[in-house]
């Protein structure tokens, strides 16, 4: 339904997107994640037809956005970032204008406007000027305008931006309902929202696709973290304890820092963070046993299951290293499995 194939886009000397490829299927909600300047908005704008790729191609509902732009854009509903609207128009007028622009037949136009306005909780502001509305209401006007023509593909850039908590919940519900027979791509920087809403997550950094899979697959690909506080018996023990954790099976990474905010309560205590390899068993017993054997005093040991946020941060760290060290530029992309497709 949406196909992005080896797409490149540069602005002057800046390479915003460097060879991104993915396909999105109907009934699937995909989330596009990435830090600022990663190439998310450029990618979305190329799908929406606002930008054309320098190389590669983008298909929307089977139509190339470069050779068949009008038909491709007809199949697409798009909520741009910052929700640009004509502030001098009234809400009802604006929705009616957008419906005409998207060629909604005149006999069903009023029904389409009423439906979109009701679904986006705009019934009581239809006669208000857009310029007098709050940010949340404007966001809903933008969302309603994207839905009006019942598009097969919906692209929403930060759809819950400016909404209050109950509206965020209702918008999530709306997105789930709309996704049953549509292809949806949501761009967001709110990781828990993407985790809760999306069947598939695409992570972009440095203009490249760094990860692609269902939230569960991506989370599994990250390792659990263990946080513990232990005391060094004498100066220099920290190094010995570091080595001990690092030599344990399944441990991928070890880091330490002084424990606690109040030095008087934490003299000699250090806090370690141990990152386990993906798919490893619970390491708490192993860590505790090793500490006891080596006479290290533990006062805290807790495990944290892998989270999307953790995986995201790891990918960002690796992307940062790859940007500075080209030898590490190859990234592992987790292809969408059964979970993502369902």
């Amino acid at each position, binding site marked *: 339904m949406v196909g992005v194939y080896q797409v490149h886009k540069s602005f002057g000397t800046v390479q915003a997107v460097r060879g991104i490829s993915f396909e999105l299927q109907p009934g699937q909600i995909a989330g596009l994640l990435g830090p600022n300047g990663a190439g998310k908005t450029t990618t979305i704008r190329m799908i*929406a*037809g606002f*930008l*054309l790729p320098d190389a590669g191609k983008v298909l929307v509902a089977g139509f190339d956005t470069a050779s068949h*732009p009008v038909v491709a854009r007809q199949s*697409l509903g798009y909520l*741009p970032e910052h929700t*640009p*609207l*004509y502030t001098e128009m009234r809400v009802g007028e604006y929705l009616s204008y957008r419906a005409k622009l998207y060629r909604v037949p005149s006999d069903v136009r009023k029904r389409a406007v009423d439906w979109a306005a009701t679904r986006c909780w705009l019934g009581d502001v239809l006669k208000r000027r857009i310029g007098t509305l709050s940010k949340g209401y404007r966001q809903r006007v933008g969302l309603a305008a994207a839905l009006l023509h019942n598009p097969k593909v919906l692209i929403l850039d930060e759809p819950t931006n400016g909404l209050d908590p109950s509206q965020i919940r209702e918008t999530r519900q709306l997105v789930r309902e709309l996704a049953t027979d549509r292809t949806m791509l949501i761009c967001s920087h709110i990781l828990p929202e993407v985790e809760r809403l999306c069947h598939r997550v695409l992570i972009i950094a440095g203009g490249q696709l760094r990860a692609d899979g269902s939230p569960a697959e991506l989370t599994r690909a990250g390792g659990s973290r263990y946080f513990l506080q232990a005391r060094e018996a004498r100066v220099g023990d920290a190094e010995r304890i570091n080595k001990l954790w690092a030599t344990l099976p399944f441990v991928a990474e070890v880091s330490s820092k002084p424990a606690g905010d109040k030095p008087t309560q934490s003299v000699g205590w250090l806090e370690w963070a141990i990152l386990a390899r993906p798919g490893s068993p619970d390491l708490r017993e192993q860590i505790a046993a090793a500490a006891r054997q080596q006479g290290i005093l533990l006062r805290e040991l807790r495990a944290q299951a892998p989270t999307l946020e953790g995986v995201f941060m790891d990918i960002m760290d690796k992307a940062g290293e790859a940007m500075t060290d080209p030898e590490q530029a190859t990234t592992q992309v987790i292809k969408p499995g059964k979970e993502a497709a369902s």
Partner: protein
Amino acid sequence: MKGMGVIARRELAAYFRAPAGWLIIALYLLLSGLVFSVYVLRPNSPASMRDFFTVSGWLLMPVVPAMAMRLFSDEIRAGTLEALLTAPVSTGAVVMGKFTGAMGFLTCMLLPTLVYVGTMYRVSNSPPDPGPIICGYVCLYLIGGAYLAIGTLASSLTANSTLAFMVTLFTILGLLFAAAPADDAPAPVRSVLYSISIVPRIGDFAKGVIDSANAAYFLGITFFCLLGATLALDQRRWG
């Protein structure tokens, strides 16, 4: 050109939603009304609206850039261009829609001046010749259209509407007075300067003559500027 009419209607309505639109019409009618009542409507003078059309042609010089400056600049600045260029409408239809909407506003501005024509017919002993009057309005449209197209192109190039206004105004001034240094220029340059200058053509129009070369000149400017605006907007898609 599907979608052009929808964009044109929104554009025309947008002029009347802002005080600036009403102000432009009011100022134009005030000045053209003054010209009509002081210079045209004189006792014992021939029933001719020539002075009205000449002054109206000059008045278009500051008025039309003011009408055109916000056409795309405001959309670029506010980000609404993204919503417009991702709608299922070709870039050419977007430009033509905007231009047609602005021409509609020009019509709304010129329409009340028919009152002057009616007054002429009412107060003149011998009714005025309709030929030069029709010709005068056609010429105002041709000049207004060309100025608007220049303004549309300038507006499509920048997010700053004041800059678009200035560029349009100076381009029009350049075209108006291109013939001024012509007499001192060598022969080939002189003929080029005369051919691109607007002033001699306005003189022809005021006489009630629609020369096909003059009409082609204004229509040519309109066509190439609108084409330029379409290309400028398409260029934005390429980044």
